[in-house]
């Protein structure tokens, strides 16, 4: 196993809080929610497991180091993310065999079986699976259409609406975990934008005004 500190991208001198923060940021980045229906979902899950293990290892190591008995409480589970999510493992499904095929990457076989389903039996799940196949192939516009149809046919299914919401959010111009900070997950906001500088200056000016001085002459 790689050095757990390296995996969490923190120095050995980092405080517990800093480690927790780094863990939280990584957990959000590789959250299964970001990879629902993605052909790379399994790799994201592996990454998540690696991060979990690294976090546990670091925390365990620190607890042992504090062998003096003054044990501090810490949140053993750290960031709570949703249970590992597997789009293709639901039981109550009339298409469980097809889900299995998609899960194993046998897209052509899965598609053939799906296409063989007669029109009246094509329910929300059928569209969801069709969307998953298109998504894996990279046909993402077509995938979005099918996911939308699935969510319309069964608005109560959280699996369908989560995918549709994520894709809609991306279609509006958001990139997952944008390090420049406009993403839904917030990302890590590096540096300081023009707006931050302006608002900072205005605030500073307000402070100066209160104290009888003036920083920006015109306001």
């Amino acid at each position: 196993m790689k050095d757990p500190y390296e995996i969490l991208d923190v120095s050995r001198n980092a405080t517990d809080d800093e480690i927790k923060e780094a863990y939280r940021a990584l957990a959000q980045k590789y959250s299964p929610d970001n990879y629902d229906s993605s052909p790379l979902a399994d790799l994201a899950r592996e990454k998540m497991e690696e991060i979990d293990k690294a976090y546990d290892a670091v925390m365990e190591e620190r607890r042992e180091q504090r062998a003096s008995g003054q044990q501090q409480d810490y949140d053993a589970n750290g960031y709570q993310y949703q249970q590992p999510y597997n789009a293709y493992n639901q039981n109550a499904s009339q298409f469980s065999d097809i889900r299995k095929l998609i899960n194993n990457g046998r897209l052509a076989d899965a598609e053939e079986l799906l296409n063989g389903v007669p029109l009246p039996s094509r329910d929300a799940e059928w569209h969801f699976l069709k969307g998953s196949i298109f998504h894996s192939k990279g046909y993402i516009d077509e995938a979005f259409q099918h996911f939308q149809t699935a969510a319309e046919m069964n608005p109560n299914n959280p699996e369908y609406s989560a995918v549709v919401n994520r894709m809609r959010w991306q279609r509006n111009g958001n990139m997952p975990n944008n390090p420049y900070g406009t993403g839904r997950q917030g990302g890590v906001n590096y540096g300081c934008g023009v707006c931050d500088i302006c608002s900072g200056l205005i605030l500073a000016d307000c402070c100066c005004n209160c104290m009888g001085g003036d920083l920006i002459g015109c306001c």
Partner: protein
Amino acid sequence: MVENDLYRSIYCGLCKQLGRSFGPLARFTLSYDFAFMSLLQLSMNEDCLRLERQRCAANPFINKSCCCTNQALLNSADTAMIMLYYKIKDNIADSHGIKKLKYLLALPYAKRAYKKAVANQPDIDQLINDNMMRQAQLEEANCNHIDEVSDPSASSLAAICETFSEDPSQKRVLNRFGYCLGRWVYLMDAADDYLQDLKNKAYNILALQNNFSTDAFTVRQSIEPSLNLTLGEVASSYHLLNINRFKSILDNIIFQGLPYVQKNVLAGQPIPKIPNVTLVTSTKEEHYEGSI
């Protein structure tokens, strides 16, 4: 070293590499697209990177920092020549008159470089060839399906990116990353060339989707959600890549450069130089930039 300079030296290094591998004329094909591919490949490995100050043909009085020969630059130069050859062949088929003559004259040179490049990258050539043929068939048949018509370009870039790592999981991620990036580039080209294609009655997926509307602005805006979604997919696969170095340049290109270029192309504006943004991955080739 400032990261911007590092990207620049990879760009200059690629220019020099094109010259070394295929002769001075090949350097005119230099583009930021292939500099980006070299950067990505270099970021995936940990090979020692040598930089040297060398004379630059475009600015003979200024010595520029250049990245010395390495596998990534060799591969990018080969791929650039393979793509150039197919592009010229495609242009010969599509153009008439004096333009056609221009491409016909360039063909023997491109073919010589192409043969040399194919000897190094036979698999990539086969794949690009197949995809180009598939693309031509789809366009011939007036395919009116965004996903389908962008698939050949996307698959080509997917296959090229896949070669950047030996690790099977990373290959999968690179494949997805390249696929989505290739799809984005294809659709961006369609948006960028819209009016020209309309004038030349050339195939353009956006023309078919919008009933050959002459309102280029609205047409370009119509593709925005799909382009955004594509970039979102590029980003989520990018996060799964094991990037060993140059992460801040790559972050900059992917999260700032690409959306910036997209915004400008969709607004029908030329892509201006970007202060403080390292990258400039444009969909157009930028000759003379830097170091010819």
